[in-house]
């Protein structure tokens, strides 16, 4: 089974500051990578995904992530956060060719401070 590590369980950041949420995974085989966001009392919404091609992927709400195969990482970044970005963020991995089964990290709670 895959292992997905989100090292930071909580990240406080001031409004308009940049933020990076870290994600590392265990697989040495080909994977698909995802970031989901969960706003309070809601389900998960896809922020962005990496399937193939350019290692820098852009998502919704100004977020982007970079796939680094050698470091098995997929860190999420935003250059300037807003209050509305306060939410829980989940990194997920799916191994290529194994169907649609996802492995999720434990989540990072981002709090944007006014």
């Amino acid at each position: 089974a895959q292992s997905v590590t989100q090292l930071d369980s909580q990240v406080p950041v001031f409004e308009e500051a940049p933020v990076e949420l870290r994600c590392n995974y265990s697989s040495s085989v080909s994977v698909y990578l995802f970031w989901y966001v969960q706003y309070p009392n809601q389900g998960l919404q896809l922020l962005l995904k990496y399937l193939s091609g350019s290692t820098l992927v852009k998502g919704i709400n100004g977020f982007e992530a970079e796939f680094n195969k050698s470091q098995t990482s997929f860190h999420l970044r935003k250059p300037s956060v807003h209050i509305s970005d306060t939410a829980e963020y989940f990194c997920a991995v799916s191994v290529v060719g194994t169907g649609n089964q996802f492995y999720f990290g434990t989540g990072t709670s981002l709090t944007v401070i006014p």
Partner: protein
Amino acid sequence: DVKVTQSSRYLVKRTGEKVFLECVQDMDHENMFWYRQDPGLGLRLIYFSYDVKMKEKGDIPEGYSVSREKKERFSLILESASTNQTSMYLCASSWQGSYEQYFGPGTRLTVT
């Protein structure tokens, strides 16, 4: 827009009761999934289904069963609810061959 709905947002049940959580999707997705979400543990897969009447165990199937009689509906069943099944339950669906899962709003189940 894809819509995944779950029958209840909040549910309170007593220990030993049989509990049904329903999930319906309106986009003709082949794949459907049930997860539970607990603080510090993220999302863990309970069961999933690739087709009608088909089911596969996920990482934590003990104490749960599922039913998929129609393509759009995937039910999670707690045969005899226990307090350690108090959790947030999330349903998701996706097209076959697509790697994007669409999530419902979740059901917060409390077992007392």
